[in-house]
């Protein structure tokens, strides 16, 4: 049923009225009476021993309320910031994580690490106080280069060789054997460039302490307030969960960077209790560059073994992953369970072996960023495939076709631990080839050539795994949390509906999509559905939003709760209509006795539930409000074909993306307009990584790309008008048959762009980002 507001309709977003009129309610918009302001004092050194921090002058500064150092937090037994996923090394040993105090105590290990926080009556007073903090640092040589980090100076006393872990996945012997039997081996050396997230709203926090009740309330820019509360309560020891409420109001973008529990909100909520006044902090953009977790940053060598006919026999991947100075909340899982597990791609490669060594450096911590591991995996696989195709003179579309897992092969067990439930990869590729007019490429290339330009085409047939699952498997692999989601459907007395979800929307449009689901399933008018999210005081414990899970996992929880509502509604309706419960049908908002004209509407049933006059109270509780926890049995596996066509000006090195086609299989789609928007955003970020964005530290450990003067974000004029289309193989294991769409654009596009650029230049590789200078040099064979 596709009503104007139901599942499948491109309903305009409920959120936009407030966002485009400036009426959004972001953390920094919220002010509390008597509020003070926090300013963090940050290390200018990438690595230094702290001999002492003199706060006397800062404390004496006009308008300064308090100055705290790491020692003050330690004295209050405020704990370290933990990493929530225990990865084990090849030898079975646990990963090694250094202590990570929220405010540095003994040493600072990256530029921007806070070593004191000043609380002021005004922001200006706090800034003046911060200027007056005098620290005695003893500079130490910084470890910056990932490739040599294992043999460099040891950063943390407790971490030999600067190594977090040395992990493996797959069958080494079988993979070696595949290479022994190969007719051709394609090798790629890849640097996956470091990215800095740059959500449009910087991180912020407002901490409040209610001395009378002994409770804390933290408003902050979190993608998952329950996780924030759990960590602050159980690990950091701010307060027990029951006395700590975490609220994420409107949040302006996260892309993963707001999943993590950071030093700043930790210090803010603790400080609110110390100074007995509300404490507000909002990052300046410069702080975001320094202290938000960065993304990607891998160095990889990969080899694909092939038979004469282009069939893939084996894949070998060896990666060094940069963790930065400390292990952030989920950092350890990104280059392992979200990376190594994706190396089969869309292909039947029978033997795969992946090794990942994660290393510490004196740089900002690195953690999940849109795609988290899967863009890196796609880049490895799709660069290998494209390289093999060129080296063996096989058409790049054809070589993929020869190796695709076929629709009849599902469920398909890959050699790297995943079971794909469904897919039709050739369908997406065919559609994409048609959109890009692959047949006409030769003529277009010739036309460019005669105009002095080099045209190239690049493919990326990506797969990703999202809606991380199931809880028991993940926990057995080291996850410290479950992976379910909670959904609550509260039917109001008059039949309108309030949905409370544990998922959080910071651009994903839950308020619209979830309302569409409810409207569709319960027949309630779309405008009569309100979606609440982002508040530990409103919803049960849940995991929040990351890894494209909101609809597949959070939406499934809502469906489960809705099923319970319908089941209870049938009982109530059967009683009122004097029929048997199993004779009741529910459709389009009406309960009907089968094969009769007896019916009762959903609002009438709701009213009866809350005003239980004609109601079976002896066997049924009053009220119509249900809740469900949904634990997904498997990941969902969105997949698609991205094709990029570029023109390169060999004289300037400027890359012009002349066409970009993305055909994605997200299963069933609830709101095509919103999905298209998600794809557009993901493509912009993936293309940004390929051509523009680069987080760079100099060899002494100073961040050089620390502002928009030096860090290039993609802008509209860097991007073409995208052609976005879908194919549909419904997910087999969730009630809506949906997959995730939030990260796919960023996962698939980067490899397609780089394959196109290398194709245009006729070179084996071009480093990312393919800036004009890089491309110009590559074009000259430098």
């Amino acid at each position, binding site marked *: 049923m596709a009503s104007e507001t139901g599942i499948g309709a491109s309903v305009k977003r409920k959120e936009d009225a407030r966002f485009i009129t400036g009426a959004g309610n972001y953390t920094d918009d919220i002010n509390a009476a008597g509020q003070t302001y926090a300013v963090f*004092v*940050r*290390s*200018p*050194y*990438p690595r230094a021993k702290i001999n002492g921090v003199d706060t006397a002058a800062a404390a004496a500064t006009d308008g300064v309320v308090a100055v705290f150092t790491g020692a003050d937090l330690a004295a209050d037994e405020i704990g370290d910031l933990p990493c929530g996923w225990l990865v084990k090394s090849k030898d079975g040993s646990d990963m090694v994580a250094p202590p990570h105090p929220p405010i540095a105590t003994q040493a600072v290990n990256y*530029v921007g690490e806070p070593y004191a926080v000043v609380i002021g009556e005004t922001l200006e007073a706090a*800034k003046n106080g*911060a*200027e*007056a*903090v005098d620290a005695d640092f003893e500079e130490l040589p910084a470890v910056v280069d990932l490739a040599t980090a294992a043999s460099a100076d040891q950063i943390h006393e407790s971490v030999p060789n600067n190594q977090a872990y040395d992990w493996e996945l797959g069958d080494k012997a079988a993979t070696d054997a595949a290479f022994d039997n190969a007719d051709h081996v394609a090798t790629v050396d890849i640097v996956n460039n470091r990215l800095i997230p740059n959500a449009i709203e910087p991180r912020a926090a407002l901490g409040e302490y209610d001395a009378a009740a002994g409770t804390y309330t933290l408003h902050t820019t979190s993608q998952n307030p329950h996780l924030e509360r759990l960590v602050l309560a159980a690990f950091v020891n701010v307060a027990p969960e029951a006395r700590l409420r975490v609220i994420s109001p409107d949040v302006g973008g996260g892309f993963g960077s707001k999943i993590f529990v950071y030093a700043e909100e930790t210090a803010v909520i603790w400080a609110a209790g110390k100074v007995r006044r509300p404490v507000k902090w909002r990052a300046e953009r*410069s702080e975001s*560059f*320094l202290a938000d977790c960065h993304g990607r940053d891998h160095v990889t060598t990969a080899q694909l073994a092939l038979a004469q006919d282009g069939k893939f026999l084996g894949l070998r991947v060896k990666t060094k992953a940069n963790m930065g100075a400390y292990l952030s909340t989920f950092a350890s899982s990104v280059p392992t369970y979200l990376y190594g597990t994706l190396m089969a791609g869309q292909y039947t490669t029978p033997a795969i072996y992946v090794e990942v060594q994660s290393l510490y450096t004196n740089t900002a911590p690195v953690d999940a960023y849109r795609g988290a591991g899967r863009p890196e995996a796609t880049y490895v696989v799709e660069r290998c495939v494209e390289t093999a195709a060129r080296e063996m003179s096989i058409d790049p579309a054809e070589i993929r076709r020869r190796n695709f897992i076929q629709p009849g092969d599902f469920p398909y067990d890959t050699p790297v631990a995943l079971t794909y439930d469904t897919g039709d990869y050739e369908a997406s590729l065919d559609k994409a080839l048609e959109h890009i007019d692959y047949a006409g490429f030769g003529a277009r290339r010739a036309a460019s050539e005669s105009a002095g330009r080099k045209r190239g085409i690049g493919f990326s047939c990506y797969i990703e795994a999202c809606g991380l699952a199931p809880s028991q498997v993940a926990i057995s692999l080291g996850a410290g949390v479950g992976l379910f989601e909670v959904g609550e459907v509260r039917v109001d007395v008059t039949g309108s509906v309030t949905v409370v979800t544990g998922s959080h929307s910071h651009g994903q449009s839950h308020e619209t999509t979830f309302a569409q689901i409810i409207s569709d399933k319960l027949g309630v008018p779309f405008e009569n559905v309100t979606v609440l999210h982002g508040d530990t005081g409103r919803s049960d414990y849940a995991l929040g939003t990351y890894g494209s899970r909101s609809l597949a996992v959070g939406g499934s929880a809502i469906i489960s709760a809705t099923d319970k509502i319908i089941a209870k509604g049938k009982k109530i309706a059967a009683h009122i209509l004097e029929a048997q419960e199993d004779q009741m049908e529910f459709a389009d908002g009406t309960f009907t006795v089968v094969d009769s004209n007896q019916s009762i509407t959903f609002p009438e049933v709701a009213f009866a539930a809350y005003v239980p006059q004609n109601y079976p109270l002896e066997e049924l509780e009053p009220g119509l409000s249900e809740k469900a926890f949904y634990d997904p049995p498997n990941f969902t596996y969105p997949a698609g074909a991205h094709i990029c066509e570029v023109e390169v000006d060999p004289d300037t090195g400027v890359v012009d993306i002349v066409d970009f086609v993305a055909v994605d299989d997200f299963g069933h789609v609830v709101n095509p307009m919103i999905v298209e928007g998600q794809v557009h955003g993901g493509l912009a970020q993936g293309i940004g990584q390929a051509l523009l964005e680069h987080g760079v530290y*100099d060899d*002494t450990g*100073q*961040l*050089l790309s*620390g*502002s928009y*003067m*030096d860090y290039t974000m993609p802008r509209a004029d860097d991007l073409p008008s995208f052609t976005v289309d879908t194919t549909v193989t419904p997910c087999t294991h969730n009630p809506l048959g949906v997959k995730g769409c939030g990260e796919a654009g960023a996962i698939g596009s980067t490899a397609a762009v780089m394959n196109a650029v290398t194709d245009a230049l006729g070179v084996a590789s071009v480093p990312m980002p393919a800036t004009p200078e890089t491309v110009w040099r590559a074009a000259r064979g430098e």
Partner: protein
Amino acid sequence: MEQAGESRIAQPRDRVWRALNDPEVLSRCLDGCKSMTRVGDGEYEAEVGAKVGPVKATFKAAISLNDVVEPESYRLDVEVKGGAAGFAKGSALVNLEEVAGDDGDETLLTYQINGNIGGKLAQIGSRLVDAAARKMAARFFERIKVDFDTA
């Protein structure tokens, strides 16, 4: 950061040398210098207001003269702390050569500077700091020259 330059001063070398060792002269000639105090033999502390791109701050500098070969050369080691603005450190090799001028002895001053920066200075000002430092050094040695005429 590395740079070098020279300045020809129409004064005898020992006079130039004395000027380069006089905190008052140094203070007068250094752009934005708010104070310069001798704190020991060949050791100075200075406060300098400077602006590099969008980073504007008062920097506290600890200066020490090393490898002094009177009246020919010294190495000026500088450590600059700008609080939230970051830090800079570096050294300048200053060499004075006696040259014959039309109206008597003159001095050819040459300098080589190298150093590095950190914190906000590097984060926001890295692409600007070379130019800013070059300008500051050039103005300093130009003013030294002029200072003899006005002192």
